[in-house]
């Protein structure tokens, strides 16, 4: 149970609440009790002074009955326990309780102790020392007593009665005791109230925290755990939805990104593994098949030589020889594929290669009554490519087109050259700070290329940021929790020299701008707050757009169903059943990929020959000129 993060959180918060509220309540109650007691004390003192003052005149007149009457009257108040006046010797002279009159008090008794502790009475006492709290009888409530010494004054020893000597300092003591029953009741109720409040508060906090933890921590964590389990179990397409916008939501989104990337990578891996195993298979098959083929070829040739006088047999044997030779070419093709050779590149004209490829299939085109429409770009630049491999690509596409059309149709071949923005395709291969320390970090790769590492300080956090090395791409990696849009400082990880250009401002958000030198290739600037994706590399922008050659081969055949479109470049994927080997398009893909090119396909399913609405277009884009610095 305590393994759950929610339970742990609730527990920690509850314990904290119990401690804080408990301590607070305890001190609060203590304080209240203290205040109440002080109030009672003050009240008792006042009362004691009042009694003293009220009896003063009677004292001077030595009217003892009157004094007794006053004291009786005051003592009737139920809150007052007892009012008594003692003389110096400790004899109770007046008391609101008549049975106490005449009793002698022991000087060691509680009420006397404060002054007589040292066996010699003190003359002045603070109020606190004059007060005492005690329990008169074990079964009755606590009482507060306050003694009030009656000091000798000139009017006392000068009065007519001459009852006191002038030398005496203290004439007697007024002792008022007040019952604390009500106060105790109040304190007790305060304590109960405090405890109830504390318990209610703790329970309430527990519930609120519990709810929030459940809603904002428990459920998202559960979903995340569920998602990782799903992915671990192989459901790599599992998507986390609705995790909110907090850190867990962010985690969920990056989880989704991760699985997406993982999916793509595993697809690629799958593809290349398939290619590799296919290569091994092809090599094995080629080796195994070539031996029996040798036998067939030799013996049928022998029969040919031996049966020169039998034209009927010669004809049949020629078929065997011809078909065996064809098998030899097929196996050779398999081996060529298995080798996946590095393209042997030279400058070549794609229009000419197309001519040659069309010449090869011209017979087939004629038989199937298919016309070829050429839209040649007369200014098509020559490109660096392996002419043989490129011709193989065109041939394959033509054969596919012919198969898709069947009878009567048209294949349109268009060549063109185009320019694309350098953004998203140009790699930043070198970058230095003002002191020419390299910022390239081969340890951290983004998209397979070494990233650009900078030190970053943001909101007191310090760490590293890895910039995407492809100009215009923004797959940056932030080593710290970056508050996008805050003012960051960026510096060289080696010498800490600032990489912020203080004279420039981001034209999109007005924020700071980083400026990194690319040796011999100018500077790259970009938004340093990473709030937007502004980036500028003047040198590359000035060089203009990157040039590509494009070849579109379009047929008006049956088209490819959408569900097959994503699979057609996979080895062994074939819709031709027994007629095809399923190798063609995957080989094409490999060749174009080896040339740093891209092949894409668009298709619409039609129903030939009635409704000639369908068709497939393969578009190949090959880089023109020096391809080395391109992705």
């Amino acid at each position: 149970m305590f393994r759950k993060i929610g339970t742990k959180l609730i527990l920690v918060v509850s314990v904290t609440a119990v401690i804080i509220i408990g301590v607070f309540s305890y001190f609060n109650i203590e304080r209240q009790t203290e205040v109440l007691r002080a109030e009672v004390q003050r009240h008792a003192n006042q009362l004691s002074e009042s009694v003293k003052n009220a009896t003063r005149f009677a004292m001077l007149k030595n009217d003892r009955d009157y004094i007794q009457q006053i004291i009786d009257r005051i003592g009737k108040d139920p809150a007052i326990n007892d009012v008594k006046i003692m003389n110096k010797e400790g004899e109770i002279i007046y008391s609101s309780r008549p049975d106490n009159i005449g009793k002698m008090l022991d000087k060691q008794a509680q009420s006397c102790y404060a002054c007589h502790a040292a066996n010699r009475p003190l003359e002045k006492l603070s109020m606190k020392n004059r007060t005492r709290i005690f329990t008169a009888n074990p079964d009755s409530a606590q009482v507060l007593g306050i003694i009030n010494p009656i000091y000798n004054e000139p009017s006392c020893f000068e009065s007519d009665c001459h009852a006191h000597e002038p030398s005496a300092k203290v004439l007697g003591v007024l002792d008022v005791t007040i019952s604390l029953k009500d106060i105790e009741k109040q304190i007790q109720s305060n304590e109960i109230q405090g405890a109830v409040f504390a318990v209610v508060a703790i329970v309430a906090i527990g519930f609120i925290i519990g709810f929030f933890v459940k809603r904002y921590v428990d459920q998202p964590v559960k979903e995340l755990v569920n998602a990782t389990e799903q992915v671990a179990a192989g459901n790599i397409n599992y998507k986390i939805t609705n995790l909110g916008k907090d850190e867990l939501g962010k985690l969920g989104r990056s989880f989704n990104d991760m699985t997406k990337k993982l999916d793509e990578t595993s697809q690629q891996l799958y593809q290349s593994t398939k290619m590799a195993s296919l290569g091994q298979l092809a090599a094995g098959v080629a080796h195994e098949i070539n031996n029996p083929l040798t036998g067939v070829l030799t013996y049928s040739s022998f029969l040919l030589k031996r049966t020169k006088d039998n034209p009927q047999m010669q004809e049949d044997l020629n078929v065997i020889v011809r078909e065996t030779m064809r098998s030899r070419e097929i196996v050779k093709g398999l081996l060529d594929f298995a080798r996946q050779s590095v393209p042997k590149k030279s400058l070549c004209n794609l229009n000419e290669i197309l001519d040659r490829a069309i010449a090869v299939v011209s017979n087939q085109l004629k038989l199937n009554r298919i016309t070829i429409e050429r839209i040649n770009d007369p200014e098509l630049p020559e490109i660096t490519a392996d002419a043989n491999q490129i011709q193989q690509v065109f041939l394959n596409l033509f054969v596919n087109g012919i198969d898709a059309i069947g009878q009567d149709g048209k294949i349109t071949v268009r060549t063109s050259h185009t320019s694309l923005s350098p953004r998203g395709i140009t790699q930043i291969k070198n970058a230095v700070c003002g002191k020419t320390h390299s910022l390239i970090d081969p340890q951290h790769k983004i998209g397979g290329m070494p990233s650009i590492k900078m030190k970053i300080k943001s909101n007191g956090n310090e760490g590293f940021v890895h910039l995407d090395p492809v100009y215009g791409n923004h797959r940056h990696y932030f080593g710290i929790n970056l508050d996008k849009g805050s003012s960051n400082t960026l510096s060289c990880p080696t010498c800490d020299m600032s990489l912020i250009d203080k004279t420039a401002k981001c034209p999109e958000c007005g924020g700071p701008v980083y400026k990194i030198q690319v040796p011999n290739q100018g500077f790259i600037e970009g938004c340093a707050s990473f709030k937007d994706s502004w980036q500028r590399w003047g040198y590359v922008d000035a060089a203009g757009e990157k040039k590509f050659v494009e070849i579109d081969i379009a047929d008006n055949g049956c088209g490819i169903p959408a569900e097959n479109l994503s699979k057609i470049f996979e080895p062994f994927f074939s819709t031709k059943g027994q007629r095809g080997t399923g190798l063609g398009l995957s080989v094409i893909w490999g060749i174009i990929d080896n040339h740093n090119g891209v092949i894409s396909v668009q298709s619409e399913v039609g129903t030939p020959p009635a409704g000639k609405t369908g068709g497939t277009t393969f578009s190949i884009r090959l880089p023109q000129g020096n391809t080395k610095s391109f992705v």
Partner: protein
Amino acid sequence: MMKSHCNILIIDDEQVIIDSISKIASLEELSVDSSLLGKDAFKKISEKDFDLIICDIMLPEMDGFQIINELAKRNIETPVIMTTGYSTIENAVKSLYLGAIDFIPKPFTIDEMISLIHRGMRYSKLLAAKKKNVESVLLVPCPAKYYRLGYSCWMNKELDGSVLIGATDFFIKTVEPVRQIELLNHGEILTQASPCAKFRTDDELAHPLYSVLSGNIIERNEKVIEQPELLEKDPYFDGWLYRIIPTEFDYEMKILIPCSSDRS
């Protein structure tokens, strides 16, 4: 004890290949022995003299490359022709690099095998004659700064960076008289250890020449097509075949043999 003599030893683990080659050899009235394993082959070599060995590459226990190395180690100079069903450029290059005089991919036609055996037998005879210093065998030496692939195809790098390619005198002597030369066209691509020219002879045979380097053909010798006898007269200068721009020069040079080593 005088060893018995036999023309050809076939080493192949497939009986059908042995039978096929034996049949072809019998057309040419050549005697044939065979073994399915490398070990067995060495036993046969110690018992008999052979003019020619035709050896498969992929063999159990001891493969064709190991056999050719073992032959060199034992100073057995019988010329070896490699054959394989796994006919990649790499295998062809490796075979020629290790000293095989020729390479033939399976499956082969009768004509291909006959021409191959012809060259092999001629080579063997030339080698024997050279050993005995027979005066009638006059080989034109390959110029010192030239390089060759195996014994058949030479190359010479010109000052402008282009490379001239031709057939060695030794090779021509194994095929002559050449009646007709078939060359690839200008603009086509040569691949090292792949056929780059065909020499047709009066006995209706076609002999392929394996290219010494990979590259793009920028010029071919039209004169030698018109006058094939140029080949025999001046194989290293007027008898050149192609001028190419090599594509993998530095890499491919590593397996070539300098002609200067022929002098020692």
